[in-house]
């Protein structure tokens, strides 16, 4: 990474009549493989690097990027960004919230460096998962795995004196299986993500987790009972708690959505100025506190400084059931008269940084797991899900169970096939009356932005118990 060229680009930009300028260089060293039905389709290894400039001038923003590391190209993209910023001709001039400049150099350590792990070991690791599945004696008609490591290095400078270097290694994996029993297929997918080194593999035990999924699918096909639709208690496992947290708390609390900047793509929010919900409004029960925290060690969504050079911190989105804090970048913070809480992220050098989640989860409560179940006379335990979606203001959502059981008098009994909860954000979070002590996370790639930016996140929480919700 040519830091001198990045500094040159910044100096060239501040030589123009700009209100603000930044240059972000971003290098991504990726190594990965794809395997289907026991066959290694392809192995790839590549480094992608480039830099971008973002300019605020005359109240408008221009952005340009390149992967050609020359002074001529640097001048070209600065000129384009400057021209584009001035082209906006906005009535409401964009300003950025005032923030202290930062000088930092941060990195995530690897206990076992991924660069020391040979391609053979990586291939064998995935082959072993496949072998473990095929030796189960279950008809797993299709299997697909993706596995990869990456090293993201960034160098950020802005016209206010910030200079930040970072190095972030990650490991990610994905599995998708189809189990067929009596001619009926059921499917499961599972994602794994970690910031750090090869030690991730020891924590995950992918084979064990995928074997569990295969057995669950087989049992659901053979023994799964249909839900008798109606109001009942619902216990959500960490995976279901996590997706609900991400979709119906994290997304609607993104300030750019609230202000309408994503209106034509990922949509707006049920929270908007002068609407029924705002900071201080009740949205759930007092048992519900949801945090988005980029600083969770080794989390998939980990970062120390965001892509505007703001120090990362935990954000308490819903606090004791009340809407508490939005996710901000400097632009949205200025519009709402507050400060950025470091939520600005970009997936690569050729994408603008926008407001994103990092690791979103329900804070632990004080119930033991046994206590969560023992007080349920009749209900459903939804441990995991397959199908899910939510409307574009993040209020009308649906989760369809993959692994689920009937709860009778506090005991788990029959497996349940595809239970569905389709409800509103307010009903979901207001129904929570108990939260267990242990938080677990699942990893994912959160989609937002145009062009799409899939960004690593954790979603999670403990067991949560919802009283008297409609399940079908």
């Amino acid at each position, binding site marked *: 990474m040519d830091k001198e060229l990045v500094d040159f680009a910044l100096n060239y930009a501040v030589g123009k009549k700009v209100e603000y300028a930044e240059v972000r260089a971003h290098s991504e060293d990726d190594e990965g493989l794809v395997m289907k039905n026991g066959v*290694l389709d392809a192995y790839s290894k590549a480094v992608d690097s480039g830099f971008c400039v973002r300019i605020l001038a005359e109240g408008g923003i221009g952005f*340009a990027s390149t992967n050609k590391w020359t002074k001529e190209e640097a001048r070209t993209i600065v000129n384009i960004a400057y021209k*584009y910023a001035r082209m906006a001709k906005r009535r409401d001039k964009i300003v950025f919230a005032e923030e202290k400049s930062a000088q930092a150099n941060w990195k995530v350590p690897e206990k076992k460096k991924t660069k020391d792990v040979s391609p053979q070991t990586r291939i064998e690791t995935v082959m072993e998962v496949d072998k473990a599945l095929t030796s189960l004696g279950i008809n797993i008609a*299709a299997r697909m795995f993706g596995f990869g490591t990456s090293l993201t290095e960034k160098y950020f400078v802005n016209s206010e004196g910030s200079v930040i270097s970072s190095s972030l290694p990650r490991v990610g994996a994905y599995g*998708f299986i189809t189990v067929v029993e009596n001619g009926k*297929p059921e499917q499961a997918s599972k994602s794994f993500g970690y910031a750090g080194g090869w030690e991730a593999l020891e924590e995950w035990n992918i084979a064990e987790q995928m074997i569990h999924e295969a057995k669950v699918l087989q049992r659901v096909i053979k023994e799964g009972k249909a839900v008798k639709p109606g109001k009942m208690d619902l216990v959500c496992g960490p995976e279901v708690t996590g997706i609900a947290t991400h979709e119906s708390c994290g997304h609607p609390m993104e300030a750019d959505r609230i202000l*309408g900047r994503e209106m034509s793509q990922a949509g707006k929010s049920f929270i908007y100025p002068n609407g029924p919900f705002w900071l201080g409004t009740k949205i759930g029960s007092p048992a519900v506190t949801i945090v988005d925290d980029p600083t969770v060690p080794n989390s998939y969504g980990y970062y120390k400084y965001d892509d505007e050079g703001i120090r990362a911190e935990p954000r308490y989105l819903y606090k004791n059931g009340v809407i508490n804090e939005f996710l901000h970048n400097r632009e949205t913070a200025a519009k709402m008269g507050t400060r950025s809480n470091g939520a600005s992220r970009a997936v690569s050098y050729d994408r603008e940084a926008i407001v994103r989640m990092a690791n979103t989860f329900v804070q632990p409560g004080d119930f033991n797991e046994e206590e969560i179940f023992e007080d349920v006379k009749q209900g459903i335990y939804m441990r995991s899900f397959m199908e899910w979606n939510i409307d574009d203001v993040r209020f009308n959502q649906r989760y369809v169970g993959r692994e689920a059981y009937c709860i009778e008098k506090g005991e788990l009994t029959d497996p349940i096939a595809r239970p569905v909860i*389709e409800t509103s954000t307010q009903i979901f979070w207001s129904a929570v009356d108990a939260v267990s002590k242990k938080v677990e996370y699942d990893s994912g790639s959160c989609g937002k932005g145009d*062009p799409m930016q899939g960004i690593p996140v954790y979603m999670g929480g403990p067991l949560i118990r919802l009283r008297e919700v409609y399940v079908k």
Partner: protein
Amino acid sequence: MSDILAKTEQIVKKGKALGADDVIAKTVFGRYRQTRFSNNQIDISIAWNDYATDVFLTWKNRVVATLIRNFQKVDESVKNLFNLAKVSKENPQYGGIAKGKFHYQKSKADRALENLENPAKYVFEAVEAARKEAGPDTNAGGILFTKFEDVYLVSSEGPMGEDSRSAIEFSMRAFSQKEASGHGVECSSTIKGFDATRAGRKAGEIAKQAKNPKAGMEGRYDVVFDPLFAGALLDMWGSMTSAYNVMVQLSIFVNKLGQKVASDIVTIRDTPAAYSMANRVFDDEGVPARENVLISKGVLKTYLHNTSTAKIFKTETTGNAGLVAPTHWNIEMDAGDMSRDEMFHGVKHGLYLTNTWYTRFQNYATGDFSTIPRDGIFLIENGEIKQSWKEIRLSDNALKMLSNVVGISKQRQHIHWWGVEGQPSLAPYILMKDVQITRPK
């Protein structure tokens, strides 16, 4: 031979000299421009220039790939890639790449889209068009996107060619009230005939009709799908014809070749035609990209293949490589014989759904899924729009829906926007019977 094509060929020659069996190098110089707007104002304008060569190499059926950003480091990159192949694992299903020389059609890419002058003009004109339809308080957002790519492909097995690919997309969502919106798109491969105000007018028109929505009701309905919604369905069905997705059961079409999968009036093609945003003259193996009929009068005719998947299925490539996974380019549903008005008049009690997003499957193999209608959702009574609705979900089966198509319009529109997660389409209005609608409780 152009300089870049010659440099691309050098990569292939280097790989062969090292001992590789098959090598393909594809260099793309892309110029992409986007203007994003919301609340009737421009938020940001973006330009990204991208120079890259994708390299695919095999040695003894070991398949490896890399990306080269810097021609100065070609020798080192290709050597590293070859060494990677040596330690990788054999892919017994690898079936080689296309052989021979091909004649390609001349690209019809539009150089005007290389650097569109004053993109803001299109945005402001379209916003005004929406406001004219839905009123001065209309609040609009969206994007104007242009693409121009110069593509150079060289294969060690003979194919060699140059292509230029251009596209322009305008996408706008307009709000007449907090819960009343409409969406319009205008997509093309050329600036000729491109009219962003057409999308603005449509967004405004739907937003106006969508005012004061009521909570919708669960049930089974006859549904008229707007081309914008139909485009999302066509992309979903099209992606499931990729032989790769069939092999991993991310498809409703597993073991259904030659079988009836849709109603008689349904014919669906994949074509990288010149009008399409996905225009191209060759695929990633250098095989001429062509039209393929996927479903003919309801019968599944073919999956989409590259050379490797074609060998597995004992057929020929369809010119849809993707070197690992074949891909669809641009899905067309053949025009039907109904006008839009005739379609509406045939609906006694049904819905008109103008757009959707967030399509997710419980089971790709069976086709059970749901998706969330957005923007105008309308109740139709006796052929007339009676009420604007909100808060519903389409929860149905992708295979069953194909069989429930009962009407297709003559009129079609080229569709792509952010919510279509894959490729563009040429989509008609579709009338479908017995569609299951659910809502939150």
